């Protein structure tokens, strides 16, 4: 697979505030890439640079090996689903979706067919003559997706396109979008701050924070091997513990030595230890292992979320077995469940 988009050392500031700081990222044809990060980290700005709505301060963006610096947005083979839909208020649903095709002067029957197809895809059949300001947030979002997708762009930029949907519809649309992307062979750059959405949909996840890319990798990589504390805490719930890497394959935390699979650190290097809540099993108190007291338990539907206090630090454990507050327990986990990260500021 060749590259469709290359972002090369891009920097962007608004009034002296650096919003994107020396970003580099390459995206392959047909890839589903997710930009994941907290509010204000520069996700929308990056999309706007790719779409051509914002000019960059430094660096280059190449689309299919061509520098797009001087190409206006209407000439780019890219379409965008805007964060706040940006539907045309004077047009009905049909005309909103048909807008791009009409500009390209496609024959009427073809436009009709394409729009009806899209309506079916986003489950809005029968809504074609509705005024867009009579739609709910979720319906507007789906019109916005259809309006962009109907143009069959090579690259589709989606800025939190599922934000306004309820859980059920959201999951349906996640599946539908993923299906469409696979079937139509369109490259997706998808923005979200929902980590679960990022992990379930993407081929690759780009974790961003404060204008910097923290980590790029497959969902499995990002989840299992977060590169630093930000990545680990942003992706799913984690227990992050101070530890010392005594030597290769041996880490000490909570005053106990644990075997692990990590190596390549300096002897006695201070590290962050990550253990996922679902990787910890609660057993009867055991001198050889970390011990604590259950302080809280919440039923979460599929599992219980149990808080255990260990030496003034709270651990979160997911378990299908209930415990009682005040129970004395030990935490059991294997070498594979321990993930070691370098300290961020080191």
């Amino acid at each position, binding site marked *: 697979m060749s590259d469709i988009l290359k972002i090369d050392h891009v920097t962007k500031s608004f009034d002296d505030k650096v919003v994107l700081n020396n970003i580099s990222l390459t995206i392959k044809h047909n890839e589903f890439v997710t930009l994941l990060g907290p509010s204000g980290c520069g996700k929308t700005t990056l999309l*706007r640079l790719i*779409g*051509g*709505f914002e000019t960059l301060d430094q660096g280059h963006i190449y689309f299919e090996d061509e520098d797009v610096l001087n190409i*206006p*947005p*209407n000439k780019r083979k*890219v*379409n*965008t689903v*805007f*964060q*706040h*839909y*940006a*539907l*045309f*208020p*004077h*047009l009905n649903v049909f005309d909103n979706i048909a*807008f*791009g095709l009409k*500009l*390209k002067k496609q024959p009427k029957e073809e436009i009709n067919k394409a729009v009806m197809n899209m309506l079916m895809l986003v489950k809005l059949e029968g809504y074609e003559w*509705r*005024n867009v300001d*009579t739609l709910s947030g979720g319906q507007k979002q789906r019109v916005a997706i259809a*309006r*962009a997708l109907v*143009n069959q762009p090579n690259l589709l930029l989606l800025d939190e396109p599922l934000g306004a949907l309820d859980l059920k519809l959201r999951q349906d649309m996640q599946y539908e979008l993923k299906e469409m992307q696979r079937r139509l062979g369109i490259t997706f750059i998808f923005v979200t701050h929902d980590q679960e959405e990022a992990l379930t949909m993407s081929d690759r996840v780009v974790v961003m924070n404060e204008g910097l890319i923290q980590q790029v990798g497959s969902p499995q990589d990002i989840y299992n091997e977060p590169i630093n504390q930000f990545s680990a805490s942003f992706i799913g719930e984690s227990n992050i513990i101070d530890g010392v890497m005594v030597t290769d394959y041996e880490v000490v935390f909570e005053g106990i030595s644990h075997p692990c699979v990590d190596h390549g650190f300096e002897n006695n290097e201070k590290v962050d230890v990550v253990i996922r809540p679902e990787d910890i099993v609660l057993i009867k108190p055991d001198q050889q292992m970390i011990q604590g007291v259950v302080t809280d338990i919440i039923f979460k539907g599929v599992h219980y979320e149990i808080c255990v206090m260990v030496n003034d630090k709270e651990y979160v454990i997911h378990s299908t077995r209930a415990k009682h507050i005040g129970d004395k327990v030990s935490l059991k986990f294997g070498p594979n469940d321990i993930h070691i990260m370098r300290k961020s500021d080191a």
Partner: protein
Amino acid sequence: MKQIVKGLLLLATVLVFVLIYFPIVVIALMSVNASSTGQTFTYFSFVWYGEIANNTLLLRAIGTTLFVAIISTTIATVVGTFVAIGINSLKRNQRLNMMVLNNVPVVNPDIVTGISLMVVFGLLPISFGINTMLIAHVFFSIPFVVLSVLPKLKELDKDLFDAAQDLGCTSLQAVVKVIVPAIKTGIITGALIAFTMSIDDFVISYFTTGSGVQNVSLWIYARLGRRNFSPAVYAYNTIVTVVTIVILLRLNYYSIKKKMRRLNQ
């Protein structure tokens, strides 16, 4: 107690409306009064309406008024809309400065605007007449169009322009195909205000006209001194009032119908 207050308020309201509409009704009555002096009501007749067609001077004044109003409204609406779009795309600070610039002519007394324009036209190598009057009307109408279009622009999704470009519009197409239709109601309101202001204007026209060109207000004013203007003027006034009422009713009717349609969906 509450009943009494309510009754008094109702009475005040009725009284205000009676006072406002009384002169209009009087003029309407005089326009169908066959008497040429208007002192007494002789008998009901539409002669003065027919008289409009015979009074060439009045006809010419009406023609001037409509000509100036239509042309100046058209120019002011187009220019004002683009100015508003421009102002709206500025950064906040610059936008506020531009709004002050825009609002000065709006709140400035007509007499100041009229005299300033007269002085400026005097400095330019153009002769006073319908041209200068037209330019003056364009000038004082533009800020009103800007004022009625800007709030509509502010309501729009800020990505609308980008979305149009994203789907293939050039910047000009984006304005014409998306922004302008989306702020249509603001533009129509602006045009209506500009049109009324133009038809209505006396002071600014007085200072900027020349070579005997008169719109209706100037013509009536010139007649007034001699106290011999024909009741055809009443007929003209009544026609204007009726047309205004019809336009207002239509506009209301459309907006009500639109609301009903929305509710039905």
